[in-house]
């Protein structure tokens, strides 16, 4: 059940109606827990049991960690929790990747191994909820969080449907305190969340899904396309991935907000970043702070020895790359960003500080944005060969083939960036939320008319052909 589907609207409407009709906070939480399992079960009922067992396991481990006096026992329980979560993640997401990599390595050394590819279905959202669960037991281990008071509360935190399948990765330390009291939503907040949901829907269905077919065409056959088309496709992919992911996050935050729960902000206009470090403060914030706090810090974080700090940065970003997908292109993408972060630090260390320098800010933005777009090529490409072709096109080292994309698409990403810059400056979504009720309802309805007209139906296969 995707947030863009009609059945999600029906589901959310039903959930909101029942939720706000219940008077007891306990009943509300129990109802939301059941609704979350129904939501997750809409993909595959079998994985609901897995989600329940993982959450229950971490609840148990956290209680044991909190209750144990000996450091060794505490350590044993947190290791057990990590093993469980990473084990499940490893089996479902990385098993084939590791097998294939081992076989390829053996091939490279002349040993011929058969390639036993396992037919494993990837449970939706597994990367998100395992990381979220890990942060719970680690925080309890670090004595930064008291464990949940009862199993129901923790199951609810782990399964809360708005953020279950695609984040934002909401740490229990942030979410658990919200379970104590009745949640309250004010009328302006309702309007703000309705606007946020609409904007998220527009980004996901109206923009990301519409540009996707053009991106797919170029990435599917890069040799046929001209350098300008490749450049456009890379830019469009940057738009697509941002609108897709941030749109989904907006809808998640808004859905939770309509129930009175707060989720963390996940994006903050990342393509307006003036450095790569700035980019990572704005892009997928819940993940970047997670890997900072649980990987970078665990590796030792910032060290007096620069080389150690840089090693930690690189390892953290490699792990972050692997988190995104089980392929070496993702690892390379993470490594590239790690190198860029190191280069960014080195540059800042060597250059004199230039606070307020517009020229340096603009140059920083230009270099950062183009680097990020180039790196997205690695992220999106099916293999290194495709990525290399597109990177050569992007850098105009190769004029490419003769196929093109509609020219106006080249102007679309800069135009959208200007719109984002303007909307941040004018804060019109916030202003819309403060309209008088009737004007808001009229405007909101009219806005939906434009959004549904943008739905990308043309690329939908006619289902008849599947029979």
């Amino acid at each position, binding site marked *: 059940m995707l947030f863009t589907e009609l059945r999600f609207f029906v589901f959310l409407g039903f959930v*909101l*109606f029942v*939720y*706000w*009709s*219940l*008077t007891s906070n306990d009943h509300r939480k129990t109802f939301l827990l059941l609704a979350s399992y129904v939501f997750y079960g809409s993909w595959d009922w079998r994985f609901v049991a897995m989600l329940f067992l993982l959450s229950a396991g971490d609840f148990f481990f956290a209680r044991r960690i909190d209750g144990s006096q000996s450091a060794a026992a505490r350590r044993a329980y947190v290791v057990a929790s990590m093993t469980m979560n990473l084990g499940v993640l490893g089996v479902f997401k990385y098993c084939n990747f590791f097998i294939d990599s081992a076989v390829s390595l053996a091939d490279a050394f002349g040993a011929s191994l058969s390639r036993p590819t396992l037919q494993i279905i990837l449970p939706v959202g597994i990367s998100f909820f395992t990381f979220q669960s890990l942060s719970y037991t680690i925080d309890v281990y670090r004595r930064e969080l008291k464990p949940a008071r009862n199993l129901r509360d923790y199951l609810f935190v782990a399964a809360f449907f708005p953020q279950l399948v695609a984040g934002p990765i909401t740490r229990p330390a942030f979410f658990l305190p919200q379970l104590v009291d009745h949640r*309250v*939503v*004010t*009328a302006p907040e*309702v309007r703000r969340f309705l606007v946020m949901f609409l904007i998220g829907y527009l980004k996901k269905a*109206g923009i990301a899904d*519409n*540009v996707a*077919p*053009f991106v797919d*065409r170029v990435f599917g056959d890069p040799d046929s396309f001209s350098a300008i088309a490749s450049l456009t496709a890379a830019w469009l992919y940057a738009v697509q991935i941002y609108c897709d992911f941030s749109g989904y996050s907006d809808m998640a935050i808004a859905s939770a907000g309509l129930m009175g729960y707060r989720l963390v902000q996940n994006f903050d206009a990342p393509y307006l970043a003036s450095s790569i470090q700035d980019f990572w403060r704005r892009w997928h914030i819940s993940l970047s702070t997670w890997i900072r706090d649980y990987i970078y810090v665990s590796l030792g974080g910032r060290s007096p020895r620069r080389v150690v700090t840089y090693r930690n940065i690189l390892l953290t970003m490699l792990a972050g790359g692997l988190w995104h997908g089980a392929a070496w292109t993702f690892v390379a993408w993470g490594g590239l960003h790690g190198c860029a972060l190191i280069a960014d630090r080195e540059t800042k260390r060597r250059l004199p500080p230039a606070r307020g320098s517009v020229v340096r800010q603009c140059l920083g933005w230009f270099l950062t944005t183009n680097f990020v777009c180039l790196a997205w090529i690695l992220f999106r490409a099916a293999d290194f060969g495709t990525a290399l072709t597109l990177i050569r096109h992007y850098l105009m080292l190769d004029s490419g083939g003769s196929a093109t994309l*509609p020219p106006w698409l080249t102007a679309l990403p800069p135009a959208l960036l200007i719109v984002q810059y303007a909307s941040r400056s004018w804060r019109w979504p916030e202003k819309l939320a403060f309209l008088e*009720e*009737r004007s808001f*309802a*009229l*405007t*909101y*309805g*009219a*806005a*939906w*008319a*434009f959004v*549904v*007209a*943008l*739905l*990308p*139906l*043309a*690329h*939908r296969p*006619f*289902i*008849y*052909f599947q029979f």
Partner: protein
Amino acid sequence: MTQHWSFRPLWRLLRRAPLVAWAAVGFAAAAGGLHLALPAPWHLYAPPRSDKLAMLETRRAIANAAAFGSSRVHNGFDPSAFDVALAEHGYPVTSLNLGIFGGAQTEERALAREFVAHLLAPVSAPCLVLLELNAGLNFQTINLFHPRAINLYDPDTVLFALQFSGGRVGAVRRLGRAGIALAAGMLHIANVGMLGEALFEPVPDPPAPRSDALRGFLNEDPSLAGLAGVKQAFESRPSEPAAETMPLLPGNQEMLVDVAAAAAVSNIQLVYFVTPTLENLQRAPRYPDTIDGPGGAVPIFNFAQPAKYPELFEAPLWSDPGHLSRSGAATFSRLLADEVGAWIARTPRASRCGD
């Protein structure tokens, strides 16, 4: 003071109902304005319908006959075989196959109207509009959110579709047919997906050169599952199929009126035909021989009768239980040409389009 919203109890929620009504007004006003701004011929765009329309565009000047309908026409009507057979009767035509996979009566009407609207009257030759009588009425429910349905179902098409939900159609089917038509019509009026298609030029499907070279006729090689189905259908064939009398619906007549009204030339010959399937080995539908059309009786050639057309019901002529093979298409097209030729011989006016 901060105003707290509570959705409990129900009556408090109902107090917000006027706001929902205002939102609906805003939606309707914006959607209406947008609808007027969209290009007028937009309703016909949708692959693979637009592929056939593109083919029609390139052959408009030479074509004076076309067959319309579902995949049974797309797979089963061979224009070359039809033209050769009809020429033997003394009526030279150049025909096109404008049948479409999953095609419905509503889509059939749209294409037929588009065809006849640009028809050029040939000298001493008939203009034939061959309409499949037994194409489905609507698209399936699961295809509701598809441009083929949404773009097409303007109010006029919805009214046309509703003409198939009356008469002797069962209550459930009647409700289903009307429901789908109305839902598609609402999505059409709400412009769902239309602005996206107008802004983001849709990526065309891979061209089908064979289909184009064969004037829209494309018959793929049969699948193993399809052939197994054919074998099973013949193995379970009873000695005689049960006869089933099929009603003609007001929509069948409306189709003829609408197509004739759209014609750029006078005296076009409308023809209904019933495509066969192997289900006809079990149940053979019976239709009247003719139906009243705007210019007189319109023939209904019913090929779903194994007793009358035994040569069609041979296993090698079928790709699967619902579709003819290439040789089956040739046989069917020849038989159709023979029936049409005989009809024109009986009604000489039909032999001269534009007179």
